């Protein structure tokens, strides 16, 4: 299936969870609580169809075809 990730079309495995997607993109292993398995902070957040998905829900939230996903992090800014 296809989703839009940060404005770009991307194909992901059917039924992939938000957690799987975040893990793939960040290269970090993520536990069921939405935290990095290495204990370090991830520093990212996810919005799906303009609604924030709390990290505690990443594991249980399956992506659907056509979803619009934004994955953001902190960058330099005043």
């Amino acid at each position: 299936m296809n989703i839009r990730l940060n404005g770009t079309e991307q194909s992901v495995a059917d039924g992939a969870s938000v957690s799987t997607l975040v893990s793939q993109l960040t290269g970090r292993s993520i536990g069921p609580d939405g935290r990095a398995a290495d204990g370090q902070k991830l520093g990212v957040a996810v919005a799906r169809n303009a609604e924030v998905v709390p990290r505690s829900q990443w594991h249980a939230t399956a992506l659907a075809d056509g979803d619009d996903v934004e994955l953001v992090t902190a960058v330099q800014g005043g």
Partner: protein
Amino acid sequence: MNETTFAGTQAMPTVGTAGDPFVVDGVTLGSRLIMGTGGAPSLDGLGAALLASGTELTTVAMRRYSPAETGSLFQLLVDHHIRVLPNTAGCFTAKEAVLTAELAREALETDWVKLEVIADEHTLLPDAVELVDATEQLVARGFKVFAYTNDDPVLALRLENLGATAVMPLGAPIGTGLGILNPHNIELIVSRASVPVVLDAGIGTASDAALAMELGCDAVLLATAVTRAQNPSLMGEAFKHAVIAGRLAKKAGRIPRREHALASSAMEGRAEFL
């Protein structure tokens, strides 16, 4: 020869540290300088400037994650134990600002947010109507709102009454370095506020920050003045001292302005030359 002793040299107040901390939302900060991280050409340079400035709180923006430049800024702040104040820069509506704040809370695990709702890219001035709307929504959602606002005493009070944690009037438009264009309004905002007032935006050089503190502001927030200075670390250090100097001067109580000169040396007992 010189028998004068300088009393008081050992009793320097520790302003900006233990003696006079900046307390906001129950959190004690050792520095009254809040640094933005925008505009720095390199992360190394930014890290050095942040350290030189002595800041304990810095703003960050929320943007799309890019695997190529993985969270190094976030890591830099974690490494230096600098608290993060995420902003909603680039938001034009309350709706965008609320969603951005929610993302920041999730990503950075803080309920503090520098609320910035701008009217247009040319002036970067706050849109008062959207700002009020967003403040109301964010306070209801449990955020601690640091509201970036115009230098309007009426609006500042309104934001405070809506539950803003701090009000942050601009000195001049973002990035202009024009200093404090309306010191009278800043003084008025300070005199009526019961939440911390942070002078935010428009600072060009150290004396602007000192003036902000002399006007009674609780802290100063700046980014460009340091990050785009020719020597950011040196400028960061200059601001560290400027904020302390301004705060000390405010607490010390300046002399009144006078129309005419007032001699500081007594006329009495002077030698007469006939």
